[in-house]
């Protein structure tokens, strides 16, 4: 019945043949296949687009990212003497933190094309594709930012890091596994926050670009992806690590490096924010969609 409704509904994003609707199991299998296929096609299309005549800008961005990483490495080395610890963290852990923050930046600072598409007016195209709007935005983010950055920046830097005197591995096997779980929760939280921000941007109409700029700066400060929270004075880090932004950057990085001792609490906090922000994100986005106005250009 659900499938029949989907097929007949002109607003449905997936068209499902009637014969499959009669068989529930086959229908589910077919729908999953179709959704996955659409997502994968979007991911690959976006990944290929990145270098489509844009090579100099992209290479420049990677170069700045690398320079920023080098600068932070030198600053941490000048602040903490080798072999000595600072607030329970050793220099080697801080360097690994900076390395992984640089490599995982696209995953820890999720910016989907939602706001830029709204600004450019190309958001309308997402409503004509055979994939849900949110699914399309997620697939585009993976294709446009994750795959190229991982292949041409993250992986080479991770492999070369021992030459720079940095240990790229997690503190232990357990830390590695838990950091992976935490990273998945961070990514999910990042998409939820982006959805909320896109809803906010819809209401700002032509001012959405201004808000994006402010968001990016605040995001990198409050997530701990730029400067680890242990370097914040007045106990600010302890407060920030419990906030949604801190759950995105600080959580997986401190677990990976072994700086965080209360792993289960941090993962629990991430789960809590995921539930709260996804419910809020979807509800608010659906309401905001009705107010969408784009002037384009």
């Amino acid at each position, binding site marked *: 019945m659900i499938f029949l409704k989907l097929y007949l509904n002109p607003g449905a994003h997936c068209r499902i043949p009637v014969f499959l609707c009669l068989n529930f199991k086959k229908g589910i299998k077919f729908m999953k296949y179709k959704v996955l296929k659409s997502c994968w096609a979007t991911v690959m299309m976006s990944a290929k687009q990145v270098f489509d*005549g*844009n*090579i*100099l*800008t992209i290479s*420049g*961005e990677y*170069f*700045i990212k690398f*320079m*920023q990483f080098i*600068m932070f490495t*030198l*600053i941490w*080395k*000048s*602040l903490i003497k080798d072999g000595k610890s600072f607030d329970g963290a050793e220099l080697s852990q801080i360097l690994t933190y900076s390395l992984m923050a640089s490599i995982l930046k696209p995953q820890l600072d999720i910016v989907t094309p939602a706001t830029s598409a709204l600004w450019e007016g190309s958001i309308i195209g997402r409503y004509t594709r055979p994939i849900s709007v949110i699914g399309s935005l997620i697939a585009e983010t993976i294709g446009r930012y994750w795959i190229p950055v991982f292949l041409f920046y993250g992986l080479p830097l991770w492999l070369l890091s021992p030459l720079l005197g940095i240990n790229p591995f997690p503190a232990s096997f357990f830390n590695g596994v838990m950091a992976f779980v935490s990273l998945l929760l961070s990514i999910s939280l990042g998409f939820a926050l982006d959805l909320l921000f896109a809803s906010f941007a819809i209401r*700002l109409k*032509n*001012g959405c670009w*201004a*808000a994006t*700029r*402010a968001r*990016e*700066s*605040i995001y*990198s*400060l409050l997530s701990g992806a*730029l*400067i680890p929270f242990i*370097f*914040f*004075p*007045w106990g*600010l880090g302890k407060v920030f690590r419990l906030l949604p932004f801190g759950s995105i950057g600080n959580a997986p990085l401190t677990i990976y490096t072994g700086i965080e001792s209360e792993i289960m609490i941090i993962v629990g906090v991430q789960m809590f924010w995921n539930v709260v922000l996804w419910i809020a994100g979807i509800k608010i986005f659906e309401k905001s969609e009705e107010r969408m106005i784009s002037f384009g250009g």
Partner: protein
Amino acid sequence: MDKIKTLIRMFKIYGKMDLLWFLRDTKYCLMYIFSDMISTLAVVVGVFLLAVKFDGIGGMTEKEIIFMLGYSVLVEGVFALFFISNNAGQISRTIGRGQMDHKMIQPLPVWIQLATEGFSPVSGNGVLLCGIGLVYYSISSSEINVSGIWIVLLLINLIASCTIMISTIYMLSCTAFYAPAAAEEIASVGIGMFESLKNYPLGGMNKSTQIFFCSLIPVGMIVWFPSRILLGKFDIMIFMIMAAAIFLVLAVLIFKKGMRYYAKYGSPRYSSFGHR
């Protein structure tokens, strides 16, 4: 003399247009001003927190770091004041989109257009005001001996810092003459480089790293080095002026070379059905 008069007239025109934007679309204009202020301050807050935690970094005390960050915001404010509008600070967009033609047909020298079209005394002043406030706070809470000469020194350094910044961005942007599509957004990369790297003191690093960050990647010449001069930690003022002059001459030469190439080959993106 005529050119100076034209220059002033153009500044007046662009200033008036910026004021009109503020009057006609106050809500959005204020939104842009505040977002610029927030993003600039958010970037410097991180370094400030580090300085508080470690009681100073890179051979500078906490108060000196506050001055340095104030100077950094001031530089960004001056840059915003003169280059934020009409892609004046992101010239690779104009070049890459084949829009230099629009400038070449105007009855004005290209350099006057480039120097004036970014002038935004209203929408671009938010960051500048923040910078003035921060510098004033840091001066009043530290032992800097402020005199008329010191203020002149501050202005000279400010002009030199902005000259190095805009010259570097223009040099980078010249790649758009040869690769219009690939380098259309290269100026944003240059601006991003200065935004993300200029606020860190280089004092704790070795000499070769300092030289690297003051020459090939001149982020140290924008904030760290001039701050040292103004804090009385480095006496040779002429070094900053010389550096600014070298960057400016290089930028002019490279830009002229690019313009000659543009005059000969045009932009392949200028098609019969539009400029993109």
